[in-house]
């Protein structure tokens, strides 16, 4: 599985690079070149990042920042309307499930903001995350210490990302220690859905006035990153299975299973096998997934 993932990335990038090289004599050449180089660089970096952080999986799932990293890699611009509003945090401090789900959502948002260097916003979102973590009784996790650590590393994006991941892992381990597996699962659920939401959102809202080849490249990347998340969905479903005695977990398990069906409808593996992945995947095929994700997410963030 590991090899498959990285192999896929490398393949797709290679394909894209090849395509870019062959079609690339436009005015946006320089931009593309730099974009490519940058993409190459970050690709290597993200490859290494993935390799080192993969050992600390979040209950089997990739670290929180992975999806945002991928999205940034794809070349898409930052879209501020996709993240959940930080001001709603107080409204989530009611029941445990609400708090847990949205803690996951904010974690992903923080990752997304971090990779795009939106440091001031990150600080705000950390405070929201703190509120929710405190409500869950996890007082040490997103508190002053973590925030101070964050402040010290504002210039180093990699460190920032690492700090967020570590915090989420810590949260997870605390909950496991305290036999609060259902809560941990809900956090992961929230984080996952938000990742998917941002991804599909980017695809939907991708500006139309960008030159079509750039557009196509980016969109392809995005779509691929979305499809890649199906694996994570499987893991998530397993996790939720284990805690389905909790009514909220059970409810979301059903939702995830419905989402899985949407993925299956794409018939991705078959298409790749038929070597028609790049042609058959466009933004229109994602409608089903997008809709379902929207529905689940709106249930989470209210």
């Amino acid at each position, binding site marked *: 599985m590991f090899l498959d993932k990285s192999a896929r990335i490398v393949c797709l990038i290679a394909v894209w690079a090849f395509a870019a090289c062959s079609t690339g004599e436009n005015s946006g050449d320089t931009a593309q070149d730099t974009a490519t180089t940058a993409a190459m660089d970050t690709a290597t970096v993200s490859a290494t990042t993935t390799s080192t952080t993969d050992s600390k999986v979040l209950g089997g799932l990739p670290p929180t920042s992975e999806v945002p990293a991928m999205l940034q890699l794809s070349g898409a611009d930052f879209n501020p309307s996709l993240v959940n509003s930080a001001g709603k945090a107080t409204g989530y401090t*009611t*029941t445990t499930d609400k708090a847990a789900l949205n803690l996951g959502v904010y974690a992903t948002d923080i990752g997304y903001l971090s990779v795009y260097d939106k440091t001031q916003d990150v600080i705000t979102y950390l405070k929201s995350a703190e509120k929710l973590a405190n409500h869950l*009784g996890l007082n040490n996790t997103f508190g002053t210490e973590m925030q101070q650590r964050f402040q010290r590393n504002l210039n180093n994006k990699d460190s920032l990302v690492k700090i967020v991941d570590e915090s989420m892992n810590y949260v997870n381990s605390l909950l496991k220690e305290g036999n609060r597996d259902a809560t941990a699962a809900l956090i992961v659920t929230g984080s996952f859905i938000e990742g998917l939401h941002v991804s599909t959102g980017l695809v939907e809202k991708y500006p139309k006035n960008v030159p079509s080849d750039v557009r196509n490249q980016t969109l392809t990347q995005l779509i691929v990153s979305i499809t890649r998340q199906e694996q994570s969905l499987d893991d998530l479903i397993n996790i939720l299975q284990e805690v389905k005695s909790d009514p909220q977990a059970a409810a979301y398990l059903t939702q995830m299973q419905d989402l899985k069906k949407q993925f299956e409808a794409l018939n991705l593996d078959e298409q790749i096998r038929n070597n028609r992945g790049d042609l058959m995947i466009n933004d229109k095929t994602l409608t089903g997934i997008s809709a379902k994700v929207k529905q689940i997410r709106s249930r989470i963030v209210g």
Partner: protein
Amino acid sequence: MNEQVLRAIIHLLAISVTIDGVAQEERDTIRKFLYENVDDDSVAKYLRLFDEYVRNSTAHPDDPREIEYICAQINTELEMQQKVIILLRLIELGLADNNFSSAEETFLWQVCEELHIGKSTYASIRHFVETRDIYSVPSDNILIIDSHEPTEGFTRNYIQKPKIRSTLGVLRLPEVDMYLVGAAYPAIDVYLNGHRLKSHYVAPLTSGSVIRASGETVFYSDIIGHFLKSERKQRITFEARNINYFFPNGKQALHNINIAEEAGTLVAIMGSSGSGKSTLLNVLNGNLEPQTGKVLVNGLDIYHQRDQVSGVIGYIPQANFLIEELTVYENFYYTAKLCFANLSDFGVDRLVVQTLRSLGLYEVKDLKVGTPLEKTISGGQRKRVNIGLELLRQPSVMFVDEPTSGLSSRDSENIMDLLRELTMMGKLIFVVIHQPSSDLFKMFDKLLVLDTGGYPVYYGNPVEAVVYFKTLVNQVDRDMSACIECGNINPEQVFNIIESHVVDEYGRVTGERRVSPQRWYAFFREHIKIPKLDPAREKPVHTLDIPSRFSQFMLFSSRDFLAKLSNRPYMVINLVQAPLLAFILAYIVRFYHVDELTGRSEYIFAENVNIPAFIFMSIIVSLFMGLTISAEEIIKDAKTLKREAFLNLSRTSYLFSKMLILFCFSAFQSFLYVLIGNWIVGIQGLNLTYWLVLFTCSCFANMLGLNISATFNSVITIYILIPVLLIPQLILGGVVIKFDEMNPMMSRQGEVPILGDIMASRWGFEALLVSQFKDNAFEKQFYNLDKQVANADYKKTYYLPTLSSKLEYCSDVEAAADQKAYPKYAENLLLLRNELTKEMKSNPALGKVPLGNLNIERFDRSTARRVKEYLDSARAWYVRQYNLAYEAKDQITASLVSTEAGKQDFLARRANFHNDAVERLATNSTAEHRIIEYRNHLMQKIYPVYNDAPNLGGVAEFRTHFYSPGKPFLGMRVSTLAFNVIVIWLMSAVLYATLYYEVFKNTVSGNFLRRK
């Protein structure tokens, strides 16, 4: 006089006159009457009125109606004495034309009846006015003043004044307690109160009047003395034997003073400045106990048998000790009520009015006494009020300190006459007087002269004092005591001789005295004998009837309250202070975020970070307000207290009345403060709690203020002390400097330092903060569950892991070779033993551990294993408890937010009732150390407000950590709010005891010598 009444009188006069026609003499009498009673300009007007009445009068003596009507009018306005004057004028009018018809007589009888004047009074007056020869009227109520010696067998009332050239007669009217005086024809050189007394003109003789004729002076008191001699009832004797008094610094103030006097004597005490007059007065009146000698009243020692002579002695100090905010009447009223419990309100009123009249203060009775700066009544009137307050209760022996200082000669005469009148009625009065005029000097019966250093140098008849001293210095005219021509005695002569200085060779006066005080004293001992006195045996009676302590309490309270009410600035400041401070404080503290993103700015109570500071400042403000309204209380009353010391009133009642008034103010101030402050800042639903705590703190400050007020004599000192007292409350209240972060020498971990425990602010703040956190309308429903969650969390996250790591350390050490190299080994084992003991006791269900093995000798691997098992199972248990409690809370929340409206309501309630800053303080969530090790125990630092300290019985158990939710006491658990409030009230009670027993005052004055 009222215009209507005046017209009525004139009408009456007109009727009287018309009975047998108007004569010129009659008109003259009318005019004289008018001159007496109205201003000069109006005399002509009223005369015309009179003429008009005369013309229009249709009254017939047999027709009573008009007379009735007029008399009725007069009755409403005038007092008895004034009505008698009217009768007198009518009689005079009737006799003016030397023709007294029966019609006139009938008319006068009718008037008498309508005016309720007795027939005998009428008869007396008529005879007195009619007679041409006063000697021919046989009556004990008549006193004659003439120049010749009384003949043998002449037993009637008579005063001889050799130089007088007219015969004077005085008529006493006992039924109406009045005196009339008239001069026989021809009246030569007779002046009554400065006005010429004409022949056959009868004038009323009032208290304080002075008759001067041809150089002779007759005082009112001289006259009534004759009438009252036989009425003296009680026998009082006063003795001072061998009095020696020393000042605290050792200097001798009085040398061997001896006094022996009886009732009915007016004694003057004179001396130069520094001769010890005031000291002597205070020794004699019971204020200063002499080191040697005795002061006896009727044989009873006034210092050692105080209760038997209480109420007998009165003292009128030189300074005026009056309650300035009350009117003259009110001052008298309260003093009367405090002296005579047996009198009804009506009786008190009558007594007060009587006294006011006799002092000439009736006209100003409703004026505020005021201060010398804010004058409402004159200086002479103030002096008279001062004297009058003491006279109310008619003490048998009185000491008066310089009653005439600062008064005009007329006022001085008035006062001295009053005092003399009192001696006539049987009192014994000692007067310290300075530079009396000749007339006043002659009024005294006895004179005691002191010289510098407290040496008595003369004791005897005042007039002969001059002779005595002149003889001693061999002066030429030593046989002359008074001036031949004018009769004046010059008391200054006495002092000139005593203090005459040596003249040097240039003829200048040096500072050296010719004759020293000691030498005068030696002369005194040689020449002057103290008269022997047969002391009275009866117990001295006094008219005092002190009301019960409760009545005193009510009287003090109502008097104090009245005085405060009429002090407008005081009321305004004290009532406005609280809401103003509340408004300022709350307004400044009302913090909210202005959200730049959304532009939304609304006040959310939960997010106001200043609430703990607001609570603390409210407590300090309460303490401050409590101090300021009480700091001046006792010192303001110092003068009144001194005066009333002679009444032996109850100090308890006085203090309680003060407390009542102050507590009422505090209650009201706290109420206003809470109302406005809490409203602005948004604290909802806990108003009663806040009021209770702030009121309690204010009352404590009131008691503190009363203590300092009673301790110091200077107002400035007191006000400087206020910040000095408030600063420790600020610092040691537990907020500005946290108790954990103070000098560790001051306290032990897990306890509030003792210095903090004596501060009211600490108790008050803890009570309010804990209540605000756990009793607010939102948290109330969750508190118990939150508590379980917090305690389980502490155990599973901090406590047990700490114990586990200690265990690991010990296990490692145990396995190692040289255990002694690990110093902490023994300590950790001890800690494990201590904590596991506690844990097993509070949670027996978790199992057991061999505690006896937890020491260096017996600790081994199997013990370690068993302990580890125990810790693991304990941890699992607490995890379960945590989750159970957490889920239970979650369920409640879920049911509350099940609907959208419910959710909004839930969020709104949390925003309005709960406060994050308060929560942070109460749960100590921002603390660095959540658990600490202290003396081989583990102490929980996090979640103090959920931490019930162990309930082990005992009294000092209540000394727990700060912000604990309840205090263990004698095996019970008391809520923090109740306990803390009670503690503050107990501190107030202690302050009451220190106030009653004057602890601070005695400490302060014992520490340095005070010079009088």
